[in-house]
């Protein structure tokens, strides 16, 4: 029982990332009808917003350390962040320590701008082209974006830790009556899950309870009729692209303490996120979220030693296996609507 609870918990944080990326993908597909293979790159750019802010906070000047030498025998120089000079050591260190959560504020305008530029500058020219063309151009864009990031940040992962207050783990098992050390869960993963839940809730509320959201939903249902009513639906869809980019970016920002970011992290998530969208049902927002969590949990179960011993290699194929089964039994996915991507 404890092992099952443990894997459900693990699956939830993994599913949170899948759900957030898939949510953005579905928003773009549902509004603009574009299959955006550059969406993983937006997740990666979000992560690098956190890295960039952390580096900005750590901008330093060098101070000689008396009595110590560097590897070449020259006097050792220590980096002292400018924030220490401006705010004092304690406050400066605290700001640096909280760079990841603060990067949320930094990333939102950047990601919206990146999304809008991407849509206006490139993707809008492919609205009327076949999906295959859209996939090719967005996939190419993803490669360009990741190579740009690699050029400036290198190929190695860059450690960007969570604030000290969220380091380590807590004994969830002991809290619910199990033996000590049976169900351990890191604080930051709990934060990530809660953050994902808030973002998903906010996106749904925005679409459900605002006039803007109502118009977008109407546009998703019947773009032409909304246009005939004199509403500039294209402008709203561009904003939705920016919003989807921001959602992917925020998912990336908060993910960096879980695994140090590198330039290909977007690609690592992209394929799985597409499977999530297809399993959830093309164009279905609740489907994307539900499938994200479902596949995250299943992936966790499949990596249990007992399961691998029983079915070797299951951990590598579980998501695709489940996708095949769901698509065979429900060809439109879990919550897919009739007419989406169907002739």
């Amino acid at each position, binding site marked *: 029982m404890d092992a099952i609870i*443990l894997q459900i918990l693990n*699956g939830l944080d993994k599913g949170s990332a899948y759900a957030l990326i898939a949510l953005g993908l579905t928003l773009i597909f549902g509004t603009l009808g574009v299959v955006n293979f550059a969406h993983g790159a937006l997740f990666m750019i979000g992560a690098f917003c956190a890295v960039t802010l952390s580096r900005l906070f750590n901008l330093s000047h060098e101070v000689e350390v008396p009595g110590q030498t560097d*590897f070449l025998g020259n006097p050792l120089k220590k980096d002292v962040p400018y924030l220490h000079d401006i705010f004092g050591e304690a406050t400066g260190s605290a700001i640096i320590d909280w760079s990841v959560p603060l990067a949320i504020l930094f990333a939102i305008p950047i990601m919206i701008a990146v999304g809008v530029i991407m849509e206006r500058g490139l993707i809008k020219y492919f609205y009327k082209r076949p999906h295959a063309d859209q996939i090719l151009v967005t996939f190419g864009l993803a490669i360009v974006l990741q190579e740009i990031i690699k050029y400036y940040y290198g190929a190695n992962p860059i*450690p960007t830790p969570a604030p000290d207050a969220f380091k*380590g783990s807590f004994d969830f098992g002991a809290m619910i009556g199990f033996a000590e*050390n049976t169900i*351990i869960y890191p604080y930051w*993963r709990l934060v990530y899950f809660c953050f994902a839940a808030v973002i998903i809730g906010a996106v749904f509320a925005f679409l459900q309870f605002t006039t803007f959201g109502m118009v977008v939903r109407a546009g998703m249902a019947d773009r032409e009729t909304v246009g005939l009513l004199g509403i500039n639906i294209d402008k709203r869809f561009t904003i939705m692209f920016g919003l989807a980019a921001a959602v992917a970016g925020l998912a990336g920002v908060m993910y960096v303490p879980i695994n140090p970011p*590198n330039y290909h992290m977007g690609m*690592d998530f992209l394929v799985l996120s597409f499977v999530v969208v297809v399993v959830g049902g093309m164009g279905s927002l609740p489907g994307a979220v539900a499938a994200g969590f479902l596949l995250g949990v299943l992936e966790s179960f499949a990596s249990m030693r007992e399961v691998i011993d029983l079915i070797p290699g299951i951990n590598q194929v579980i998501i695709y296996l489940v996708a095949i089964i769901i698509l065979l039994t429900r060809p439109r996915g879990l919550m897919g609507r009739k007419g989406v991507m169907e002739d």
Partner: protein
Amino acid sequence: MSKTTLTRRGVLKTGAVAGAGLALPTYLSAAGHEGFTNAPTGSTVTLGFNVPQSGPYADEGADELRAYELAVEHLNGEGDGGMMNTFSSKALQGNGILGKKVEYVTGDTQTKSDAARASAKSMIEKDGAVMITGGSSSGVAVAVQALCQEAGVIFMAGLTHSNDTTGKDKKANGFRHFFNSYMSGAALAPILAANYGNDRKAYHLTADYNWGYTTEEAVKTSTEALGWETVAAVRTPLTQTDFSSYIAPVLQSGADVLVLNHYGGNMVNSLTNAVQFGLRDKLVNGKNFEIIVPLYSRLMARGAGENVKGIFGSTNWHWSLQDEGTKAFVKSFGTKYGFPPSQAAHTCYVQALLYADAVERAGSFNPCAVVEALEGFEFDGMGNGPTLYRAEDHQCFKDVLVVKGKENPTSEFDLLEIVEVTPAAQVTYDASIFGGELGTCNPGA
């Protein structure tokens, strides 16, 4: 039905060719070879540096390339000479190799076997490279080594740690200076016993490919010989990015040690996840929970950040060694590039010099002459103490470093501290234990 016509002239011709063929084995000695692949004819000789310039190990590849460029400078008599001044062999004069100026071409392995073979093939066929060297992966090393064997050029492996490179997949034209999984296990075991005792329960997470298996096997064998029990060994997909679902059950298994047989991005993420789960703060079986990373790389340790603190592992070489060879190389590399070299850079630099030296001593670029010159070659002054290039498997035997993540690093390069320099004798093994056939050298053409 076919008709055979024998003529006197035909018999003489055939006899002459057959006679020459039979005489060939005794003729294959240094300096006597003429026809071989890419025999340099002009005033220059071209070497092929096949390193990952894209993909996840691109930073490691960039450091390898820096080292090769430095080696070429030194071979051509430019710069301060680096390790050529401390190398026990004095055959290299700083006038290129055999008086020919050293030039080079580069290829991108992308850390993919097929891409690495394609780039090596192109450097051999189009650019006339007489030797191929570099790489950051055992899969790539084994694939390129086999290609070089077929093509008749020498392969001087870069960073490759699997036992197979000079074990079951060894080739006569291939040579490895870097250490291997067996040596890591043999070097680590006594340090682990001294620090963690003989009564431990180990849980292995192993990257699901060739290098992972040989490393797991080596560490298991060494630690079980100490009296440790292996609770479980779980294979993780090479493409895995989040290891939480593999790490979470570790505590439930009753293990008190986690061995991460991972390298590169896998190592960075699995170690980060293990620390996140607070494993190192736990008390299991009345002992502190410990994590071990059998193969450390400074470049990768940087990715894991402060999570490496206090964690044991092994490494081929480290810039903080205080022998004359290391000091000369670090000074030379650090002055040119502004930071200390990685172990990948070191092994590549040394391999380039060892190849050049072998050619000088052999008096020929012929691969078979080079093989003869390198087999059983003993040298010193290259940063690892007295070293032997064993003839039986073309593996270097030298001291191995056991290192630990530093508690208080003074810079982003100062992440590991040397705990023990394990003598070569302690990590030497019988060449036959990993199987494979060296075969005979192939001069090509």
